[in-house]
């Protein structure tokens, strides 16, 4: 397939992390994120990062690929760090120019926030790298299940998420085709004029509607009628493996909290 890399691509494997129950992975990755927020100091974050990288190693995903998976979101990390550099005004001023004042405290804070965000993104990407989209959707639906008595359509939300994830690469591909087609008609997109932009966006929208029509017809043809009475070919099942994973994440949380006290 063509070269469109999308965040959240599945990295096939048979490692313990891959074999874990998707629901457990979803909950655990939320806990890992909580741990990243719980860490109040660099040593705490280091412990956090060590665990996350350990999980990556266990999943058999090379460090370079792990970093590449979060690269598209690096701009968030950089932006947040920049904002912190500019707006946190603690400690000694290192550099002053016009209204810009960079302080020691600001730099530390920026570095800390950047590291924390990176850990957060990595833990999220570990989930998507080791879990097929279908399983994530199912786990998402299950997690929302406790809201069902309140009238939250958990199954429909899960299905919507699954479809949205499925169509992201499709639309990326179509956007590229439309872009090339309009470029063939002499369009240059560097100036970003409204007419040239609409030449991209309108076809993309019409194709979204077309896909929605086809997809709903296809779902009808397969007798889709919502989540009620729906069975699974491979039902999710918790095993001993998931218990071990839970223990590992609990250990991680404990270490992070301990490090908060140790380096307070």
């Amino acid at each position: 397939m063509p070269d469109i890399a999308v965040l959240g691509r599945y990295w096939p494997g048979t490692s313990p992390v891959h074999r874990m129950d998707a629901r457990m992975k979803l909950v655990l990755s939320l806990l890992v994120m909580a741990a990243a927020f719980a860490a109040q100091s660099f040593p705490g974050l280091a412990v956090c990062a060590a665990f996350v990288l350990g999980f990556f190693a266990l999943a058999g995903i090379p460090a370079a690929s792990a970093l590449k998976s979060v690269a598209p979101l690096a701009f968030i990390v950089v932006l947040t760090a920049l904002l912190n550099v500019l707006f946190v005004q603690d400690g000694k001023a290192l550099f002053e120019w016009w209204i810009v004042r960079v302080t020691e405290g600001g730099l530390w804070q920026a570095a800390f926030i950047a590291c924390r965000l990176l850990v957060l993104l990595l833990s999220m990407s570990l989930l998507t790298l080791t879990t097929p989209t279908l399983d994530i959707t199912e786990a998402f639906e299950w997690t929302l299940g406790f809201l069902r008595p309140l009238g939250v359509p958990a199954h429909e939300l899960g299905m919507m998420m699954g479809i949205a994830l499925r169509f992201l690469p499709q639309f990326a591909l179509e956007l590229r085709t439309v872009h090339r087609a309009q470029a063939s008609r002499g369009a240059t997109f560097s100036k970003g004029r409204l007419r040239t932009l609409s030449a991209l966006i309108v076809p993309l929208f019409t194709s979204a509607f077309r896909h929605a029509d086809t997809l709903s017809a296809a779902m009808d043809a397969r007798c889709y009628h919502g989540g009620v009475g729906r069975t699974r070919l491979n039902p999710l099942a918790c095993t001993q493996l998931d218990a071990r994973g839970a223990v590992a994440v609990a250990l991680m949380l404990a270490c992070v909290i301990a490090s908060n006290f140790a380096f307070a």
Partner: protein
Amino acid sequence: MPIAFEGVSYAYVDPERQAKSARRRKRRRDAGAIEEAPSLEKGFPAWGGSPDAVWALADIDFTLADGEFLGVAGHTGSGKSTLVQHMNGLVHPTRGRVLFDGQDLADKRVAQECRGKVGLVFQYPEHQLFAATVREDVAFGPRNLGLSDEEIERRVRAALEDVHLDPDEVGGKSPFELSGGQQRRVAFAGVLAMEPRALVLDEPVAGLDPVAREEFLSLIEELHSAGLTVVMVSHSMDDLARLADRMLVLNEGRQFALGTPAEVFAHGDALRAIGLDVPAAQKLAEELREMGVELPRDLYDLESLADDLAGRLADSAPSREPKVGEDEPGRNASEAPCAAGEAPYA
């Protein structure tokens, strides 16, 4: 204004990196870290290109001459679409180069200039319509060329007339109100309005009904006889045999054959081995020849085959009249042209 391909190879991602990741995948598969994909048979997919294939195109070498009609054929995933997107600099070769009028298309300025001269019509071009009116949509290309309003208006009218649409009738309509076949004409007019000297068509008649298809093909024929250089990608061997002066056959990104339709279609077995075929009439002629019917021409279409067979029957009719019924090749031959046309309605 020839377009020359000089040893063009294309890989979607850096070939070295791709080779490395293919090796890594193999290692992990051998180590049991990833499962064997169920659709693979002995490491190869049941159809299409191999997922480990590095090159989408490899060593393509040919020159497109002025006024020529070049047909491009190949199985699904053989690199046809990638090849035609090289022709106006949308895609740049990983190795080798594409020359337009002797200038390298890797240069952005040359590529931009060439887009006014080489009109590329994508697959399902009607999916790229966007403007509120047909006239606006067709004017998009000329406007990008920076022409004056009068010139744009003139070109829009001319282009719509070229595709047999009435500018006054459909010009003010929304392109989305039109039928599928008309939408494709509008999209086609959008490229013609740039007044290109060469037209590159990627499966122009895919998904059209037989009548629209026939109209479209004769439209292309008309444009070609008016002097346009045409490159047409198609899965229909019949269309290519009918229209093309020369054919390029791709197989797994490689140049499998390059020559006149008669030369290319002389090797039916080789074509069938790579998932293609010869035109229906040619196939019938081939089978008749095997049965001992003498057919002199290299390439047959429905009409020439019918003519030759009718001639042969007329020659042999007086002397062998009673035998025609039993003679296997003779009977087949006499029935064949009828079966194609009138038999079901007789």
